[in-house]
């Protein structure tokens, strides 16, 4: 058989796992839970990423997350709502004309305001970290192979989108080298200034060149009849809309109702159906990515985190948020902690990437 025993975990499984953790993070502002999610994600990434260039995406997005928290804090302190509570310090308030009612600049800064902003910023940072983990763990090419050929336009957009993050990471390395060769500072803030334009420019150029290369090599050829293509596109689009609405309902906490789940189920079925029609007989696979037990287990581990957090919310709704009035330590919701800890399992149950395997073999020999 051509399918190699060394085959890495299916990329969709990694994306589902990371997505589940992101959903879990989106439902809580509890500092303890958020911190644990980052720790779990970082642990799995360090044990299971390969030595590919995109494996560095995680670190890059972690830094981006830190940046988001900083921005959130600064915005809150300078322009945010004047949240009542225990005042830490005052910054002079800028008087604004009456038509700018509702907007404040400066004023008293309370512990509640800062802590609330920190929790919200951290939540976004954790979601970014989950996205980075998926980028680090799953090869975007293997993920791309799962996009059905019938959805050409969608697939190209997806390609450009998913290859963009790793391209940015590579582009940063290239531009930093070039800057060093020109004698510019490469570290600290001064080095980062003026980096953005060439990095984004380079990454976008590469992504578009990639799309051209895929096209020249036959990606998205029309192999089915126009009617069938329309059917595929319709079914998939409808399904995606359904999935979107359902997820929105679900994430908009408080309405994890049966309706939302039903809409998600229906949308998912439509998407799967559409993809099945599209990928029928048009392409072949050299080394197909198979879906095995490990893939199910990894997804289950991710879902355990969601279930744990949802269960904690159901039994004690306040345990998921940071207590502000009065200020206090975050609650310790046991089911949430347990669920998130289960999500570390992929570091054991997924197949090891090549370099790790080589080291293991060396150690055993």
């Amino acid at each position: 058989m051509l399918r190699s025993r060394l085959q890495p975990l299916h990329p969709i499984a990694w994306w589902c796992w990371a997505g589940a953790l992101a959903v879990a993070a989106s439902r809580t502002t509890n500092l303890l839970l958020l911190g644990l999610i980052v720790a779990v994600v970082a642990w799995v990434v360090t044990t299971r990423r390969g030595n590919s260039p995109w494996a560095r995406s995680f670190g890059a997005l972690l830094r981006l997350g830190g940046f988001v928290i900083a921005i959130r804090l600064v915005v809150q302190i300078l322009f945010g709502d004047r949240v009542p509570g225990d005042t830490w310090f005052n910054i002079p308030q800028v008087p604004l004309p009456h038509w700018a009612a509702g907007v404040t600049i400066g004023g008293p800064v309370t512990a509640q305001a800062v802590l609330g902003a920190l929790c919200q910023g951290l939540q976004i940072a954790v979601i970014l970290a989950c996205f980075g983990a998926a980028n680090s763990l799953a090869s975007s090419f293997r993920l791309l192979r799962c996009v059905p050929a019938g959805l050409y336009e969608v697939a190209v957009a997806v390609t450009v989108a998913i290859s963009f993050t790793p391209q940015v990471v590579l582009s940063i390395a290239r531009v930093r080298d070039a800057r060093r060769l020109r004698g510019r500072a490469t570290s600290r803030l001064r080095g980062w200034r003026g980096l953005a334009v060439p990095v984004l420019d380079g990454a976008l150029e590469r992504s578009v060149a990639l799309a051209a290369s895929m096209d020249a090599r036959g990606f998205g050829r029309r192999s089915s009849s126009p009617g069938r293509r329309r059917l595929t596109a319709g079914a998939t689009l409808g399904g995606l809309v359904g999935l979107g609405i359902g997820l929105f309902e679900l994430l908009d906490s408080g309405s994890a109702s049966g309706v939302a789940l039903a809409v998600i189920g229906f949308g998912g079925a439509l998407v799967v159906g559409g993809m099945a029609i599209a990928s029928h007989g048009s392409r072949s696979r050299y080394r197909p990515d198979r879906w095995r037990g490990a893939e199910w287990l990894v997804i289950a581990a991710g879902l355990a985190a969601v279930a744990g957090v949802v269960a904690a919310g159901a039994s004690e709704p306040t345990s998921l948020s940071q207590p502000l009035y009065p200020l206090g330590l975050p609650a310790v919701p046991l089911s949430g902690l347990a669920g998130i800890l289960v999500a570390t399992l992929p570091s054991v149950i997924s197949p090891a990437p090549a370099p790790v395997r080589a080291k293991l073999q060396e150690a055993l020999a």
Partner: protein
Amino acid sequence: MISFDRVTVSYPGALAPALDNVSLTIEEGNFALVIGATGAGKSTLLRCVNGLVPHFSGGRLNGTVTVDGRTTEKFRPRELADIVGYVGQDADASFVADTVEDELAYAMENLGVDPATMRRRVEDVLDTLNLHALRQRAISTLSGGQRQRVAIGAAFTAAPRSLVLDEPTSSLDPVSAEEVLASLARLVHDQGTTILVAEHRLERIVQFADVVVALGAGRGEVRSGSPADIFATADLAPPVVRLARVAGWSPVPLSVRDARRQAPQLRHRLEPHPHPALVAAPGDRVAKVKGLTASYGPIPALSEVTLDLHEGEVVALMGRNGAGKSTLLNHLVGLRRPQQGSVEVLGHAPGTLRAREAVRLVGLVPQDPGSLLCAETVAAECRDGDRDGGLESGTTRAVLDSLVSGISDTVHPKDLSEGERLALALALVLAPAPPLLLLDEPTRGLDYGAKERLSRQLRHLATQGHCVVVATHDVELVAEVADRVVVLADGEVITDGPARSVVCHSAGLASQVARILAPAEWLTVEEVAVALVGRQSRDEADR
């Protein structure tokens, strides 16, 4: 098979169309070579064949391009993928997959080739291009030349009826270039594949071509014909043809083998060795590499490299693709720090210096000189160069003018020709006057004229006391500029000696003239021409 009918391609904002009223036909089963100066529109012509121009480039195409009965107007690149395989100039930008095998199979997967055939073809191509040892490797860990071979292989596997290749050997070492071209020729012979190749290094490819298409710089100036016809008069000609012109041979030979038949009589007219030019004793030591060992993860790149570099010498760094040339340059310039051993430039370890101090000691022009450029105009680029290096304003511009005259201040660096872009990058690196100058594959995409100018510049820099290190596969460049050749193999220094003896006594690294006139030790057409003129005047004086 491939036909262009009055094709004009113009891009918005450009002064002149990239292709102007081009008509030509390539018959099925021909090996066609496209030649032309840089900027003559070779790449545009090739990208028209499978419709990448205009579908992916923007711009406007008038006229019709037909391939095997399908016009690019009606069929998009993806629907031509089964009849045209395309290998672009920048192999890196074309990779879709992560590993070599997946990349090779990619086009076949899209075309729906059945798995059994796919496996067979992948094996065939792995053997043809000597890639089997790399099959499981991640593409990101391969060297430039290995990547080029993967990109070519990826187009081979789908077995298209015609193959279009844009400078396929520009980053390959001489031996693998020969292998790649031989396998292209085999495709023409065995499978009747039509091949269209653009190439600057004519010395490698002319002998394989059935048809040559010469793109003139002027409007609609396209000549196509047999290689013998075209090279009888073309400005761009490989060394063998120029040697024939100097020696007055007719008909003009196109391969070393043909030329050797006429060589004895020329050898007779020449001394066995050219008069050794006054070789200046090497100056002070500029850089010292001692016991340098490096690796990329588990893959070794350099082992125990020891090397001294001196003022006033031009050193050519040669060796197979992946031998560690770029890695050595990166250590010398301080982009990487030694894991073992040491690198010193004038007593400093370049990896530990701050960027601004490092550029005063050592400069590197990378493989893609465009990556150094990031400003909007040439003037801004020069200004930034002065500021970065803490130089007096106008220094960079002055260096640029001394390299190439007449580059307008307001041009966007991306709109410069390859040669001009290289000159601009070189000017930026040279402005802080580093005693050690490194160039990585500087002749990619340069025509013979631009290459000659570059050689002169490098020689001039050496006489000014710079130490110039050129990592290259271009044996003709080495023959022209190098004093000393260092050959790396698998990360070790194999040979380190004077250029003339290394080039003349190595089968793979010999220049065309050296091969033709062996065992006499002549390297370049210019040397021969000067010697012949000298001899003629002596003969006349005797009479």
